[in-house]
């Protein structure tokens, strides 16, 4: 329990009263959508529909509609999967880990960050299913008793670990997120009337905000945070094991778990920034998501970006140090082989651009941040592409070395998931408060109270 010195610059500007906060944050939910929202929404829905079409075509015709071949069995599908999962991680991280560290500044962003987590994981979860040759039998990865008698799943397979990791991660994040929503939904309920009131009173589970509820509620949130923290780390660790436990040169690396987790946080924060910077404009929440928040997140981006950069270099060092010629070739091939452009795109976006944040000017400039956050998103996509494709396309036997290039179907599916993601996020921004209102009030200094507030 720490005391907050009054000299520290406030996290929320404009010296808001509780009521103002309520007003500001409920406005997007209660008011009409502006034209930016509609424009964004329509575009997102269209891209989503295109993606759906591409998926239907794939399932109807076969994976052959993609650019894969006998040597490169995974490419965009798993690249996108890992990319989305990675993005998801920032949400949990912000709400869970920063909660444990009592970082108050998280309060302005954790709600939408968690929403982002959930939508990102939904997009991610799509890929393992549709990348199957026979997705309609996807449920076979569950340990179900079946007509074949003792035909169980293979618990040695990292892919199966994924199944459990992703589903646990998704459901727990969902619960965590919704639990946080309940009091705020109650707020909306009490401000609304008619049908809205009915709906929101169902959604708010009859929350009344009594002292006992609050004490239990806080306990639960704390423990959930405690559970989510190792969970979020485990998820990307397990995702990285899909590669680390294989014997493909360039995949078979013990550095992967930490490297992937760092990468995940890295890309996640970038995506949070991208969204927040849009949201604060569109939903005019400038007072709640301030330059200070942006700067703090940028600092985390420098940190994780640098970790990722070091990981890249370490990989190279280990390849050389291991004296395994296959490993060595895999990495030389990454940097100078046919896919060199992907490698250097990754290097520029992930290692070089974040270093610009060392300059306070850039760190605190919203435009610069926005651009760099986009760069990081691109860079992290390329990281996964580089890991997956350049490792596979030239592995052990030169006789089966090939090249890979995507078809419009794969590209369509990828854009489709982006469409899905933004569709969901925009809907979220219209029906749920994008900022954790009740939690936020704990750090507001009410104008009515002359005394300095304690954090009991």
């Amino acid at each position: 329990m720490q005391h907050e010195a009054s000299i520290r610059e406030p996290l929320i500007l404009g010296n808001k009263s509780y009521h103002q906060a309520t007003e500001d944050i409920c406005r997007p939910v209660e008011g009409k959508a502006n034209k930016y929202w509609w424009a964004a929404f329509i575009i997102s829905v269209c891209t989503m529909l295109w993606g759906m079409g591409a998926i239907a075509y794939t399932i109807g015709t076969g994976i052959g509609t993609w650019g894969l071949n006998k040597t490169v069995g995974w490419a965009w599908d798993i690249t996108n999967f890992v990319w989305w999962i990675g993005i998801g991680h920032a949400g949990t991280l912000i709400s869970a880990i920063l909660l444990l560290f009592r970082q108050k500044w998280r309060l302005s962003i954790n709600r939408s960050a968690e929403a982002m987590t959930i939508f990102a994981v939904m997009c991610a979860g799509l890929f393992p299913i549709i990348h199957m040759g026979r997705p309609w039998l996807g449920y076979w990865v569950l340990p179900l008793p079946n007509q074949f008698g003792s035909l169980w799943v293979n618990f040695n397979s990292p892919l199966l670990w994924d199944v459990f990791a992703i589903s646990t991660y998704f459901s727990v994040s969902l619960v965590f997120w919704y639990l946080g929503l309940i009091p705020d939904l109650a707020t909306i309920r009490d401000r609304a009337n008619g049908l809205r009131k009915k709906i929101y009173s169902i959604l708010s589970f009859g929350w009344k905000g009594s002292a006992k509820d609050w004490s239990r509620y806080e306990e639960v949130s704390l423990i959930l945070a405690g559970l989510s923290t190792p969970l979020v780390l485990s998820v990307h660790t397990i995702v990285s094991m899909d590669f680390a436990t294989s014997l493909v040169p360039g995949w078979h690396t013990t550095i992967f778990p930490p490297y992937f987790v760092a990468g995940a946080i890295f890309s996640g924060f970038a995506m949070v920034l991208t969204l927040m910077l849009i949201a604060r404009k569109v939903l005019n929440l400038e007072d709640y998501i301030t330059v200070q928040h942006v700067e703090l997140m940028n600092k985390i981006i420098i940190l994780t970006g640098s970790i990722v950069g070091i990981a890249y270099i370490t990989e190279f060092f280990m390849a050389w140090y291991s004296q395994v010629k296959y490993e060595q070739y895999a990495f030389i091939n990454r940097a100078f082989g046919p896919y060199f452009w992907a490698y250097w795109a990754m290097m520029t976006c992930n290692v070089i651009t974040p270093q610009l944040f060392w300059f306070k000017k850039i760190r605190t400039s919203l435009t610069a941040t926005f651009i760099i956050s986009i760069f990081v998103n691109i860079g992290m996509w390329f990281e996964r592409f580089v890991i997956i494709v350049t490792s596979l396309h030239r592995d052990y036997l030169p006789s089966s070395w090939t090249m890979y290039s995507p078809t419009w179907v794969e590209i369509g599916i990828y854009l489709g998931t982006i469409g899905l993601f933004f569709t969901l996020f925009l809907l979220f921004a219209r029906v749920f408060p994008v900022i954790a209102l009740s939690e936020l009030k704990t750090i507001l200094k009410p104008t009515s109270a002359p005394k300095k507030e304690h954090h009991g």
Partner: protein
Amino acid sequence: MDKKVIKGVFADGDMLKEAVQELNEKGITIRNVYSPFPIHGIDKLLGIKPTRLSIAAFIYGATGTSMALLMMWFMMVSDWPMNIGGKPNFTLLQNLPAFIPITFEITVLFAAHGMVITFLLVSKILPGATAYVSHPRVTDDKLVIEVEMNQSDSHEQAAQIMKLHGAEEVLA
């Protein structure tokens, strides 16, 4: 003989706490306190026992762990052991390394969901439950103390105390 409830509506947590303290000293029973956000330390004043949800969570987690291990042992080792990639699956122990990730995930799954469900049940926070709204703005910016007393005795004293401590209004 039924009870009478008067409500003191506050705008700030600290004032409310002071009011509560004084009411306690005067031996006036406080029925409940409602607020749009947690008031730290109020539970002590109201004598709310610390919740045991964390213990519940631990038990759920432990169940998860054992369930996971039991399932995997049954499927891979006992029911239908197969030679998969030459990996040893003769006993649970030999195969354990491969089981760790899923064991962990299922533990978390059980702990998290078990705890949350318990919480919702014990606090009667459920879909469709009708909310008791003590004050229209209790989920916005108003904090409410509900004091309970017999029909007979006057509520002046309680009202006095709450007013004194900055209650914006007192509703009988």
